[in-house]
C-alpha cells in the first residue's frame, strides 16, 4: 500500500496491511518529528509533496524491494501538511518469512525515500523558518542516476 495523506498516520493499521499468515517477521519504521535540529528548538513542521510524482516513486521503490528481495508485503505512508512535534511523518512496514530480509528491505526503503521522492520539509522555530536541505546539499541542475 502506498499512501500520501494530510491526515494522521495509523501505524498499527499500516502494519496490518503487510501482516500475512506466512510472514514471520514484520519490521515497521516510524519517522517522527523531533523537537530540535542542530540544537535549535523546533515548534512544528510542514511537509509539502508533489503528490502524483511522490506516489509514483514510492510505488517504484516498492517494486525495487520485490526485485531485490522477492518481498511484496511492503507499505509506505507519508504524511504532509502541518505536523506537531512527536507526530509520525513516515511509516514503512515490511513483512517477510525471514526477519533479516525484512530488516534490510525496510531500511532500504527509508534510505531510498530521501533520494528522489519529491517531498519537502519546513521547520518552524521561535524566530524563523527554514526549508530543510537547501543548505549543505548543493546539487547542480541535473538528473539522479
Amino acid at each position, binding site marked *: 500500500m502506498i499512501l500520501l495523506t494530510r491526515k494522521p498516520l495509523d501505524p498499527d493499521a499500516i502494519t496490518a496491511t503487510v501482516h500475512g499468515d506466512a510472514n514471520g517477521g514484520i519490521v515497521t519504521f516510524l519517522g517522527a518529528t523531533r523537537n530540535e535540529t542542530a540544537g535549535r528548538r523546533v515548534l512544528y513542521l510542514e511537509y509539502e509533496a508533489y503528490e502524483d510524482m511522490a506516489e509514483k516513486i514510492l510505488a517504484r521503490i516498492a517494486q525495487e524491494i520485490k526485485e531485490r528481495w522477492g518481498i511484496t508485503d511492503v507499505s509506505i505512508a507519508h504524511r504532509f501538511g502541518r505536523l506537531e512535534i512527536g507526530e509520525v511523518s513516515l511509516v514503512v512496514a515490511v513483512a517477510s518469512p525471514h526477519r533479516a530480509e525484512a530488516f534490510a528491505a525496510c531500511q532500504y526503503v527509508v534510505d531510498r525515500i530521501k533520494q528522489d521522492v519529491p517531498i519537502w520539509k519546513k521547520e518552524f522555530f521561535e524566530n524563523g523558518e527554514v526549508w530543510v536541505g537547501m543548505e549543505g546539499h548543493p*546539487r547542480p541542475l541535473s538528473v539522479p542516476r
Partner: protein
Amino acid sequence: MKARVRLFAILREKVGASELTIVLPEHSTVADLMKEMAHQYPALLDGIAHTMVAVNTEYVQQSQLLHDGDEVALIPPVSGGAPDIQTGDTI
C-alpha cells in the same frame, strides 16, 4: 507551445505561485525553459542551481525536448522521510 510549470517548497515561495504557464518556441528544451524562467523570475536564480527537473512526473536531463502541454516541475532538494534523513546522517 506552452508548458505548465509547477513550483514547490522554497521555489514556490520565491516566485509566490505554485503554478505558472510559460510560452516557449517550438522544440525548446528544459534548458531553454530554465533560461526563460530565470529571465521572468530573477528570484529563482538563487535556487535554480540546486534544482532538478521532472517532466510529466519523471526526472529528466536539461537537454530534454518539451512538448505543448507538458507538466514541468522544478524540484528543489527533497527532504521527506525521517528527521535525521536530511540532517547529516552522522552515524
